[in-house]
């Protein structure tokens, strides 16, 4: 029972992890992208259409290759979600619009587009594709214990953790990370140091959105094994909250997302009533508020959000 709970928690946490790692990369550049829920929806749309066209290109469902379907799904999800990031950056960097408004608009747009485009899609073969997506190294039904927790996960789970670790290292230890942090902390300084603020913001938002898009793909294809009936946006907001919860550290997001997922999943494993269940589901949000309060009261400078978060930058501003 416990191992099943842990396995499904880690699986579920992947959804948050993609969203929050993507958003962390974006926020490190000073872009507060509140469009993440919408962008995860865009990722889901892209993934679904990618898988659809892959299935259509095959003669029969039995020809479907696990590797190819995951790869096609990921590429399409990334491109589609990055397009959302592109729109965001175009508005905030090139046109210098307000980031909050742009972000919220993209969320509204993405969520609506999600229900529009996925209501028409042909679902034949999605269940089979979903089975391939969620396939682990070992079969979850026949194993138990730590082996089940560690090795029955699907490819996208491992990829999420790898992306989180790589992102953390890149941000902290490489020159591109240093430049990115400088752009998010003080764009005027970065600019005076010869770093192109616009380029970094565009790229960080594009890549961050693409990674968040994997979350959408994962949710539909892997977690729900091809079921397209459910929306992602509520989980998208949790991913944004998770960024604050993990104080802008992608490696901490691995643990943070598991905690969030555990709080979200626990009610199904506990024998409690409806009210209690909903209260427990609220906990991630409450914990996030508490983290905000604690970091702002006792916070050292190093655990604060990027100083220029949410601001637009224009060099010749007077």
């Amino acid at each position: 029972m416990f191992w099943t709970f842990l396995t499904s928690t880690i699986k579920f946490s992947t959804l948050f992890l993609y969203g929050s790692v993507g958003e962390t990369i974006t926020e490190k550049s000073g872009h507060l992208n509140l469009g993440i829920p919408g962008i995860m929806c865009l990722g889901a749309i892209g993934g679904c259409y990618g898988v659809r066209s892959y299935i259509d290109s095959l003669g029969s469902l039995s020809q479907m290759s696990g590797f190819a379907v995951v790869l096609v799904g990921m590429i399409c999800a990334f491109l589609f979600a990055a397009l959302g990031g592109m729109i965001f950056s175009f508005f905030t960097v090139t046109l210098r619009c307000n980031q909050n408004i742009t972000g919220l608009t993209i969320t509204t747009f993405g969520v609506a587009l999600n229900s529009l485009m996925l209501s028409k899609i042909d679902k034949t073969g999605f269940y089979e594709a979903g089975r391939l997506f969620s396939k682990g190294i070992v079969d979850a039904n026949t194993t138990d214990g730590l082996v089940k927790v560690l090795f029955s996960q699907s490819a996208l789970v491992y990829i999420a953790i790898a992306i989180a670790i790589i992102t953390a290292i890149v941000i902290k230890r490489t020159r591109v990370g240093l430049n990115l942090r400088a752009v998010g902390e003080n764009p005027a300084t970065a600019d005076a140091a010869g770093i192109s603020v616009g380029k970094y913001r565009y790229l960080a938002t594009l890549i961050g959105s693409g990674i968040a898009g994997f979350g959408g793909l994962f949710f539909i294809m892997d977690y729900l094994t091809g079921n397209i009936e459910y929306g992602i946006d509520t989980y998208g907001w949790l991913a944004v909250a998770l960024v604050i919860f993990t104080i802008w550290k992608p490696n901490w997001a691995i643990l943070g997302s598991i905690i969030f997922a555990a709080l979200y999943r626990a009610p199904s494993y506990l024998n409690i009533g409806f009210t209690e269940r909903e209260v427990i589901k609220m906990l991630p949000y409450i914990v996030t508020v508490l983290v905000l309060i604690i970091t702002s009261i006792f916070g050292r400078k190093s655990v604060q959000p990027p100083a220029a978060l949410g601001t637009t930058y224009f060099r010749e501003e007077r």
Partner: protein
Amino acid sequence: MTYKQYQIGGNSVEKTVAIELRGITKTFGDVVANKNVDLDVYEGEILSILGENGSGKTTLMNMIAGIYFPDAGHIYINGEEVVIKSPKDAFAHKIGMIHQHFKLVDTFSAADNIILGEKCPKFDLKEEKAKLVEAHRAENEAYENYDEAEHPGPLAYMAKPKFHPEKETKRKLALMPLVGIGRRIKFNWLAKKRADVVQDIANRFGFKIDLKKKIYDMSVSEKQTVEIIKVLYRGADILILDEPTAVLTPQEIDKLFDVLRNMKAAGKSIIIITHKLNEVMAISDRVAVLRKGEHIATVNTSETNEQELTEMMVGKKVSLNIDRAEPHDVKNRLVVSGLSAVDADGVKVLDDISFEARSGEILGIAGIAGSGQRQLLEAIAGLYKVKDGTITYFDPAKDDAPVDLRSKTPVQIRDLGVRLSFVPEDRLGMGLVGNMDLIDNMMLRSYRKGFMFLDRKSPKKLAETIVEELEVVTPSTHTAVRKLSGGNVQKVLVGREIAASPSVLMAAYPVRGLDINSSYTIYNLLNEQKEKGVAVIFVGEDLDVLIELCDRILVICAGKVTGVVDGRRAIKEQIGLLMTKTAGDVDENQMSIDDLHDTNNDEGGEAL
């Protein structure tokens, strides 16, 4: 001190021109910031750029540093025409600028700030491949020739060279293009020892500073040092400093000037923007004067004087002396005693401060920036929480009846009939609302008047009076205050505060960033108020002005009063010493100040 002589137009001393500006013009909307400016900077000289506010000094320098792009004109560096489109281009031409507002990332260490944006060596695939093959070949050879007998001992195997099989070399060569791509998108590792490398260079330049410290832990002068090291580290030959002394103590200024002289001796060209004439005279070889965006003249410092420079700058004769009337009818108006306050972190920002402000007197407050001046004035104005002590106001309308002001809100203070005016340091934050026009800003003081609807007539009249009397340069009274230049913003603010006919007028750095002409307008306004019997409290940073303007000067250091000196007898060094005095040795320093008086001042000063 001796200065090199240059003959302009003649050829007594041959000097290489480092940078040449020809016909530079820049406009912002309707405002012409620079108009047809020609300027030469030589190698190994210090050039001062002098000019009033809004004369386009900073704009001109920003164009050299790549922050702004000129609308017209040419820039030549070492005789060749260049186009500087961004700060990156400026680096490429070895131009470094230290901005008035430091461009540092607070949460980074000083070392990281210095290496930020630094150019990485180019990755040449062919060369790197050859290097790898060579390195492996050398190591393999060493392996072949290694004689174990020569290296006895239990840990000998550790010293043994490595052997690279051909397979390994091939694999590494195949991976090389990937490494190249990584380098191109700047995935280079930041070395753990990067701070030490930068530290070494700083030490070699002769700077004493810990570069591992985070910027937010640093003092203003330390931050400035980091900026200078940053520019030097980038290998700049042309150094631009925008008002570098504005935030430094006299001692720190001397240190900075020593650094600048050393750099000049090393052949670097230094351009320094400053308002302070005495600094121009002390440090520069030549002075370029700008007025209203135009280049008026460039003169040798040794052939000019302060009076002449001022006239060039403002275009008309200005008296550099402040008329200081003898105070009359002096009465205690505001008495502060034992005032203490703590900031959000529980650190004491005001520590047992006692003083009295008297009617018909200007009380100066001197101190290094951030010594508690802001908190002191805000505490009096009812904006900062007081922990201990009393603030008593003696109401002239009620026969000097005492009124307790401690822990009252500004509205309560006003309702008590206390006529207190406050010109805060942060003009567009606390004083005025940038996006509102002049009239609306006047209304910030009178919005409670009128029945149901706001009274807009009298504020309009007031705004018009201020514009007229204080010569505020503005298109109309409906212009957003944000769009005015610093000096005009200040005139509007001071004008409004004076219009409330205060009995206590507090002004924090009212001339910060203002040119000489505007500054003197402000000084005269303060003097007028003093003669009307107002108790004026003036927080200043220029000690010369404090000494000339104030009747008494209160010196504070780290939230403590370190002395009160008579403005007529004070000397700069004495105040400078009081400003930097550390807590605990007050008495000891008091003695040394008396000594100073004996040697420097025939009349001898007295600490009041």
